[in-house]
Protein backbone atom coordinates (compact mmCIF):
# COMPACT_ATOMS: atom_id res chain seq x y z
CA UNK A 1 0.00 0.00 0.00
CA UNK A 2 2.76 2.38 0.94
CA UNK A 3 4.53 1.52 -2.31
CA UNK A 4 1.47 2.37 -4.27
CA UNK A 5 1.15 5.61 -2.40
CA UNK A 6 4.76 6.46 -3.04
CA UNK A 7 4.53 5.62 -6.70
CA UNK A 8 1.36 7.59 -7.00
CA UNK A 9 2.98 10.49 -5.26
CA UNK A 10 5.93 10.38 -7.63
CA UNK A 11 3.68 10.33 -10.64
CA UNK A 12 1.79 13.38 -9.50
CA UNK A 13 4.48 15.88 -8.64
CA UNK A 14 2.33 18.84 -9.52
CA UNK A 15 0.07 18.11 -6.61
CA UNK A 16 3.04 18.45 -4.26
CA UNK A 17 3.77 21.92 -5.47
CA UNK A 18 2.69 24.30 -2.76
CA UNK A 19 2.17 21.53 -0.26
CA UNK A 20 4.59 21.25 2.62
CA UNK A 21 3.49 17.81 3.61
CA UNK A 22 2.01 15.67 0.89
CA UNK A 23 -1.38 14.38 1.84
CA UNK A 24 -1.06 10.67 1.12
CA UNK A 25 -4.71 10.04 1.46
CA UNK A 26 -5.24 12.55 -1.29
CA UNK A 27 -2.43 11.15 -3.39
CA UNK A 28 -3.67 7.59 -3.20
CA UNK A 29 -7.23 8.47 -3.96
CA UNK A 30 -8.37 6.18 -6.71
CA UNK A 31 -9.51 8.14 -9.69
CA UNK A 32 -10.15 6.49 -13.01
CA UNK A 33 -10.07 8.78 -15.99
CA UNK A 34 -11.79 7.41 -19.03
CA UNK A 35 -11.95 9.16 -22.36
CA UNK A 36 -15.62 9.85 -23.03
CA UNK A 37 -16.49 11.43 -26.32
CA UNK A 38 -18.22 14.69 -25.81
CA UNK A 39 -21.81 14.38 -26.95
CA UNK A 40 -22.77 16.81 -29.63
CA UNK A 41 -25.41 19.04 -28.20
CA UNK A 42 -27.66 19.72 -31.10
CA UNK A 43 -30.49 22.11 -31.44
CA UNK A 44 -33.06 19.86 -29.83
CA UNK A 45 -33.83 16.72 -27.91
CA UNK A 46 -33.90 14.45 -30.98
CA UNK A 47 -30.52 15.69 -32.20
CA UNK A 48 -29.02 15.07 -28.81
CA UNK A 49 -30.42 11.57 -28.48
CA UNK A 50 -29.36 10.57 -31.97
CA UNK A 51 -25.82 11.84 -31.40
CA UNK A 52 -25.70 9.78 -28.22
CA UNK A 53 -26.81 6.70 -30.18
CA UNK A 54 -29.75 6.25 -27.87
CA UNK A 55 -32.62 4.01 -28.93
CA UNK A 56 -35.81 5.70 -29.95
CA UNK A 57 -38.17 6.32 -27.12
CA UNK A 58 -40.68 4.85 -26.33
CA UNK A 59 -39.04 1.85 -27.99
CA UNK A 60 -41.89 1.20 -30.40
CA UNK A 61 -40.27 -1.99 -31.64
CA UNK A 62 -40.48 -3.76 -28.27
CA UNK A 63 -44.27 -3.63 -28.29
CA UNK A 64 -46.46 -6.16 -30.03
CA UNK A 65 -48.24 -4.72 -33.05
CA UNK A 66 -51.61 -5.62 -31.59
CA UNK A 67 -55.15 -4.87 -32.69
CA UNK A 68 -55.18 -1.47 -30.98
CA UNK A 69 -52.08 -0.36 -32.84
CA UNK A 70 -53.51 -1.65 -36.11
CA UNK A 71 -56.77 0.19 -35.55
CA UNK A 72 -54.86 3.35 -34.73
CA UNK A 73 -52.71 3.35 -37.84
CA UNK A 74 -55.73 2.31 -39.94
CA UNK A 75 -57.43 5.51 -38.86
CA UNK A 76 -54.62 7.51 -40.38
CA UNK A 77 -54.48 5.32 -43.49
CA UNK A 78 -58.22 5.60 -44.14
CA UNK A 79 -58.03 9.33 -43.45
CA UNK A 80 -55.26 9.63 -46.01
CA UNK A 81 -57.36 7.70 -48.56
CA UNK A 82 -60.35 9.96 -47.98
CA UNK A 83 -58.07 12.98 -48.21
CA UNK A 84 -56.82 11.65 -51.53
CA UNK A 85 -60.39 11.35 -52.85
CA UNK A 86 -61.16 14.88 -51.68
CA UNK A 87 -58.04 16.27 -53.34
CA UNK A 88 -58.87 14.36 -56.54
CA UNK A 89 -62.38 15.83 -56.61
CA UNK A 90 -61.14 19.35 -55.84
CA UNK A 91 -58.27 19.41 -58.32
CA UNK A 92 -60.32 17.47 -60.87
CA UNK A 93 -62.99 20.16 -60.77
CA UNK A 94 -60.29 22.72 -61.56
CA UNK A 95 -58.38 20.94 -64.32
CA UNK A 96 -60.86 18.65 -66.08
CA UNK A 97 -62.52 20.24 -69.10
CA UNK A 98 -66.00 18.73 -68.70
CA UNK A 99 -68.58 18.74 -65.96
CA UNK A 100 -68.65 15.77 -63.65
CA UNK A 101 -71.91 14.37 -65.03
CA UNK A 102 -70.04 13.83 -68.32
CA UNK A 103 -67.61 11.47 -66.59
CA UNK A 104 -70.29 9.74 -64.54
CA UNK A 105 -72.30 9.15 -67.71
CA UNK A 106 -69.21 7.93 -69.54
CA UNK A 107 -68.55 5.44 -66.75
CA UNK A 108 -72.16 4.30 -66.84
CA UNK A 109 -71.99 3.92 -70.62
CA UNK A 110 -69.14 1.43 -70.19
CA UNK A 111 -71.54 -0.94 -68.39
CA UNK A 112 -68.89 -1.84 -65.84
CA UNK A 113 -70.88 -4.64 -64.25
CA UNK A 114 -72.22 -5.14 -60.73
CA UNK A 115 -68.93 -6.41 -59.31
CA UNK A 116 -66.97 -3.38 -60.53
CA UNK A 117 -69.56 -0.97 -59.16
CA UNK A 118 -69.52 -2.81 -55.86
CA UNK A 119 -65.71 -2.65 -55.82
CA UNK A 120 -65.82 1.07 -56.57
CA UNK A 121 -68.31 1.67 -53.77
CA UNK A 122 -66.23 -0.50 -51.44
CA UNK A 123 -63.10 1.51 -52.15
CA UNK A 124 -65.02 4.72 -51.49
CA UNK A 125 -67.26 3.65 -48.61
CA UNK A 126 -64.98 1.38 -46.57
CA UNK A 127 -62.46 4.08 -45.62
CA UNK A 128 -65.31 6.49 -45.01
CA UNK A 129 -67.24 4.14 -42.72
CA UNK A 130 -64.09 3.25 -40.82
CA UNK A 131 -62.82 6.81 -40.43
CA UNK A 132 -66.33 8.00 -39.54
CA UNK A 133 -66.88 5.43 -36.78
CA UNK A 134 -63.35 5.58 -35.40
CA UNK A 135 -63.52 9.35 -35.55
CA UNK A 136 -66.56 9.21 -33.26
CA UNK A 137 -64.53 6.92 -30.98
CA UNK A 138 -61.79 9.55 -30.90
CA UNK A 139 -64.31 12.27 -30.12
CA UNK A 140 -65.64 10.16 -27.23
CA UNK A 141 -62.07 9.85 -25.94
CA UNK A 142 -61.68 13.59 -26.23
CA UNK A 143 -64.40 13.98 -23.64
CA UNK A 144 -62.14 11.92 -21.32
CA UNK A 145 -64.34 8.83 -21.46
CA UNK A 146 -63.24 5.20 -22.06
CA UNK A 147 -59.61 6.10 -21.59
CA UNK A 148 -58.74 2.80 -19.93
CA UNK A 149 -57.28 -0.32 -21.48
CA UNK A 150 -60.63 -2.09 -21.27
CA UNK A 151 -62.38 1.05 -22.52
CA UNK A 152 -60.05 1.26 -25.49
CA UNK A 153 -60.71 -2.39 -26.36
CA UNK A 154 -64.45 -2.19 -25.77
CA UNK A 155 -64.86 0.87 -27.98
CA UNK A 156 -62.66 -0.76 -30.61
CA UNK A 157 -65.02 -3.71 -30.98
CA UNK A 158 -68.09 -1.46 -30.94
CA UNK A 159 -66.44 0.68 -33.61
CA UNK A 160 -65.57 -2.32 -35.80
CA UNK A 161 -69.14 -3.64 -35.56
CA UNK A 162 -70.57 -0.21 -36.39
CA UNK A 163 -68.19 0.15 -39.32
CA UNK A 164 -69.30 -3.22 -40.69
CA UNK A 165 -73.01 -2.38 -40.38
CA UNK A 166 -72.49 1.07 -41.90
CA UNK A 167 -70.46 -0.36 -44.77
CA UNK A 168 -73.09 -2.96 -45.60
CA UNK A 169 -75.78 -0.28 -45.48
CA UNK A 170 -73.79 1.99 -47.79
CA UNK A 171 -72.87 -0.74 -50.26
CA UNK A 172 -76.37 -2.13 -50.74
CA UNK A 173 -78.32 1.05 -50.45
Amino acid sequence: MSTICRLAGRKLPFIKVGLDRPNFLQLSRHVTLKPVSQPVRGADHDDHNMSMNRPMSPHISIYAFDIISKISISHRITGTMLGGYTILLGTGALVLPNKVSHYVDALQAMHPGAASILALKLVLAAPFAYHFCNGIRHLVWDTARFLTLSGVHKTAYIMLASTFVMLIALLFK
Partner: protein
Amino acid sequence: MALSIALRHANKFQGYSTLSKCLLPFYNNAASVTCASTHTSDFNKPLLRNGNISILPAVCFLTTPNTIFSNVNKSAVIAQNVRKMSGEDHRALWKIEKGISALLVGLLPACVAFPNPVLDNLTAILTVAHLHWGMEAIAQDYCRPILVGNAVSKVALLAVYVLTTTTLGGLLFFNYSDIGIGKFVRAVWALQG
Protein backbone atom coordinates in the same frame (compact mmCIF):
# COMPACT_ATOMS: atom_id res chain seq x y z
CA MET B 1 -19.74 11.85 -2.72
CA ALA B 2 -23.31 12.68 -3.47
CA LEU B 3 -22.31 16.17 -4.43
CA SER B 4 -19.60 14.99 -6.79
CA ILE B 5 -22.01 12.61 -8.49
CA ALA B 6 -24.55 15.37 -8.72
CA LEU B 7 -21.98 17.64 -10.29
CA ARG B 8 -20.73 15.00 -12.67
CA HIS B 9 -24.26 14.31 -13.84
CA ALA B 10 -25.26 17.91 -13.88
CA ASN B 11 -26.13 17.65 -17.55
CA LYS B 12 -28.54 14.84 -16.99
CA PHE B 13 -30.28 16.71 -14.26
CA GLN B 14 -30.87 19.72 -16.39
CA GLY B 15 -34.33 18.48 -17.08
CA TYR B 16 -35.05 18.25 -13.40
CA SER B 17 -34.26 21.87 -12.92
CA THR B 18 -37.29 22.64 -15.01
CA LEU B 19 -39.66 20.34 -13.30
CA SER B 20 -40.14 21.86 -9.98
CA LYS B 21 -40.63 25.11 -11.82
CA CYS B 22 -43.68 23.86 -13.60
CA LEU B 23 -45.00 22.32 -10.44
CA LEU B 24 -43.87 25.16 -8.26
CA PRO B 25 -47.28 26.55 -7.44
CA PHE B 26 -48.26 23.22 -6.00
CA TYR B 27 -45.24 22.64 -3.87
CA ASN B 28 -44.70 23.87 -0.42
CA ASN B 29 -41.07 24.18 0.60
CA ALA B 30 -40.85 20.82 2.28
CA ALA B 31 -42.33 18.96 -0.64
CA SER B 32 -40.08 20.60 -3.18
CA VAL B 33 -37.13 18.78 -1.65
CA THR B 34 -38.28 15.63 -3.46
CA CYS B 35 -37.23 17.07 -6.76
CA ALA B 36 -35.20 20.08 -5.84
CA SER B 37 -32.45 18.03 -4.24
CA THR B 38 -31.05 17.50 -7.67
CA HIS B 39 -31.11 21.15 -8.51
CA THR B 40 -27.96 22.42 -10.07
CA SER B 41 -29.30 25.66 -11.34
CA ASP B 42 -31.44 28.50 -10.21
CA PHE B 43 -35.18 28.71 -10.50
CA ASN B 44 -35.14 31.60 -12.88
CA LYS B 45 -33.93 29.72 -15.93
CA PRO B 46 -36.27 29.69 -18.85
CA LEU B 47 -38.42 26.61 -18.75
CA LEU B 48 -37.82 25.73 -22.36
CA ARG B 49 -34.16 25.13 -23.03
CA ASN B 50 -33.25 24.83 -26.69
CA GLY B 51 -36.80 23.84 -27.42
CA ASN B 52 -36.13 20.73 -25.38
CA ILE B 53 -39.40 19.42 -24.04
CA SER B 54 -38.67 16.99 -21.28
CA ILE B 55 -41.04 14.26 -20.18
CA LEU B 56 -39.46 14.39 -16.77
CA PRO B 57 -42.29 16.28 -15.10
CA ALA B 58 -44.38 13.17 -15.52
CA VAL B 59 -41.73 11.18 -13.67
CA CYS B 60 -41.61 13.73 -10.94
CA PHE B 61 -45.35 13.74 -10.89
CA LEU B 62 -45.43 10.01 -10.24
CA THR B 63 -42.73 10.00 -7.61
CA THR B 64 -44.26 12.85 -5.73
CA PRO B 65 -46.28 11.90 -2.67
CA ASN B 66 -49.93 11.90 -3.59
CA THR B 67 -50.79 13.94 -0.59
CA ILE B 68 -49.39 17.04 -2.22
CA PHE B 69 -51.97 16.80 -4.95
CA SER B 70 -54.81 15.62 -2.80
CA ASN B 71 -56.58 18.94 -3.07
CA VAL B 72 -55.45 19.80 -6.58
CA ASN B 73 -57.13 18.75 -9.78
CA LYS B 74 -54.48 16.56 -11.41
CA SER B 75 -55.60 17.21 -14.93
CA ALA B 76 -55.39 20.90 -14.25
CA VAL B 77 -51.81 20.42 -13.12
CA ILE B 78 -50.95 18.45 -16.24
CA ALA B 79 -52.73 20.97 -18.43
CA GLN B 80 -50.78 23.77 -16.85
CA ASN B 81 -47.48 21.94 -17.36
CA VAL B 82 -48.20 21.26 -21.00
CA ARG B 83 -49.32 24.79 -21.58
CA LYS B 84 -46.18 26.19 -20.02
CA MET B 85 -43.89 23.75 -21.75
CA SER B 86 -45.16 23.92 -25.31
CA GLY B 87 -44.60 27.63 -25.49
CA GLU B 88 -47.80 28.15 -27.41
CA ASP B 89 -51.36 27.82 -26.31
CA HIS B 90 -53.05 25.22 -28.51
CA ARG B 91 -56.17 24.81 -26.43
CA ALA B 92 -58.34 27.04 -28.57
CA LEU B 93 -57.20 25.42 -31.81
CA TRP B 94 -57.69 21.96 -30.33
CA LYS B 95 -61.27 22.82 -29.44
CA ILE B 96 -61.88 24.15 -32.96
CA GLU B 97 -60.41 21.01 -34.53
CA LYS B 98 -62.54 18.74 -32.42
CA GLY B 99 -65.60 20.91 -32.89
CA ILE B 100 -65.24 20.71 -36.66
CA SER B 101 -64.74 16.94 -36.49
CA ALA B 102 -67.93 16.65 -34.45
CA LEU B 103 -69.79 18.91 -36.89
CA LEU B 104 -68.66 16.76 -39.82
CA VAL B 105 -70.25 13.69 -38.22
CA GLY B 106 -73.65 15.28 -38.71
CA LEU B 107 -72.86 17.42 -41.74
CA LEU B 108 -71.62 14.74 -44.15
CA PRO B 109 -74.75 12.55 -44.01
CA ALA B 110 -76.92 15.70 -44.13
CA CYS B 111 -75.10 16.99 -47.20
CA VAL B 112 -75.78 13.77 -49.12
CA ALA B 113 -79.32 13.37 -47.78
CA PHE B 114 -80.37 16.98 -48.53
CA PRO B 115 -78.04 18.36 -51.21
CA ASN B 116 -78.12 22.15 -51.35
CA PRO B 117 -75.51 24.89 -51.92
CA VAL B 118 -75.28 25.91 -48.26
CA LEU B 119 -74.55 22.38 -47.03
CA ASP B 120 -72.25 21.75 -50.02
CA ASN B 121 -70.12 24.81 -49.30
CA LEU B 122 -70.11 24.15 -45.57
CA THR B 123 -69.01 20.59 -46.28
CA ALA B 124 -66.26 21.83 -48.59
CA ILE B 125 -64.87 24.28 -46.05
CA LEU B 126 -65.07 22.06 -42.98
CA THR B 127 -63.83 18.94 -44.80
CA VAL B 128 -60.83 20.82 -46.15
CA ALA B 129 -60.09 22.26 -42.70
CA HIS B 130 -60.19 18.74 -41.27
CA LEU B 131 -58.06 17.51 -44.18
CA HIS B 132 -55.57 20.31 -43.64
CA TRP B 133 -54.98 19.51 -39.98
CA GLY B 134 -54.69 15.81 -40.77
CA MET B 135 -52.15 16.39 -43.52
CA GLU B 136 -50.27 18.89 -41.39
CA ALA B 137 -50.00 16.30 -38.62
CA ILE B 138 -48.78 13.69 -41.09
CA ALA B 139 -46.22 16.07 -42.60
CA GLN B 140 -44.96 17.04 -39.16
CA ASP B 141 -44.80 13.42 -38.01
CA TYR B 142 -43.09 11.86 -41.00
CA CYS B 143 -41.14 14.77 -42.44
CA ARG B 144 -39.38 15.90 -39.29
CA PRO B 145 -36.29 18.02 -39.94
CA ILE B 146 -34.15 15.46 -38.12
CA LEU B 147 -35.18 12.75 -40.59
CA VAL B 148 -35.42 14.54 -43.91
CA GLY B 149 -33.64 17.81 -43.35
CA ASN B 150 -34.93 21.30 -42.82
CA ALA B 151 -35.59 22.03 -46.49
CA VAL B 152 -37.66 18.91 -47.23
CA SER B 153 -39.59 19.40 -44.02
CA LYS B 154 -40.51 22.93 -44.99
CA VAL B 155 -41.37 21.88 -48.54
CA ALA B 156 -43.66 19.16 -47.17
CA LEU B 157 -45.49 21.67 -45.00
CA LEU B 158 -45.70 24.08 -47.92
CA ALA B 159 -47.08 21.29 -50.10
CA VAL B 160 -49.80 20.68 -47.50
CA TYR B 161 -50.84 24.32 -47.69
CA VAL B 162 -50.77 24.34 -51.50
CA LEU B 163 -52.78 21.11 -51.75
CA THR B 164 -55.43 22.08 -49.22
CA THR B 165 -55.81 25.58 -50.66
CA THR B 166 -56.17 24.16 -54.17
CA THR B 167 -58.62 21.56 -52.93
CA LEU B 168 -60.75 24.15 -51.15
CA GLY B 169 -60.80 26.34 -54.24
CA GLY B 170 -61.62 23.34 -56.41
CA LEU B 171 -64.46 22.13 -54.20
CA LEU B 172 -66.02 25.60 -53.91
CA PHE B 173 -65.72 25.96 -57.69
CA PHE B 174 -67.30 22.53 -58.08
CA ASN B 175 -70.21 23.59 -55.87
CA TYR B 176 -70.58 26.84 -57.81
CA SER B 177 -70.18 25.65 -61.38
CA ASP B 178 -71.20 22.00 -61.18
CA ILE B 179 -73.73 19.83 -59.37
CA GLY B 180 -72.18 20.15 -55.89
CA ILE B 181 -70.72 17.61 -53.52
CA GLY B 182 -73.98 16.15 -52.22
CA LYS B 183 -75.45 15.51 -55.68
CA PHE B 184 -72.11 14.16 -56.90
CA VAL B 185 -72.07 11.49 -54.19
CA ARG B 186 -75.66 10.59 -55.07
CA ALA B 187 -74.72 10.39 -58.76
CA VAL B 188 -71.84 8.00 -58.05
CA TRP B 189 -74.07 5.90 -55.80
CA ALA B 190 -76.72 5.78 -58.52
CA LEU B 191 -74.35 4.03 -60.92
CA GLN B 192 -75.83 0.76 -62.15
CA GLY B 193 -73.85 -2.41 -62.68
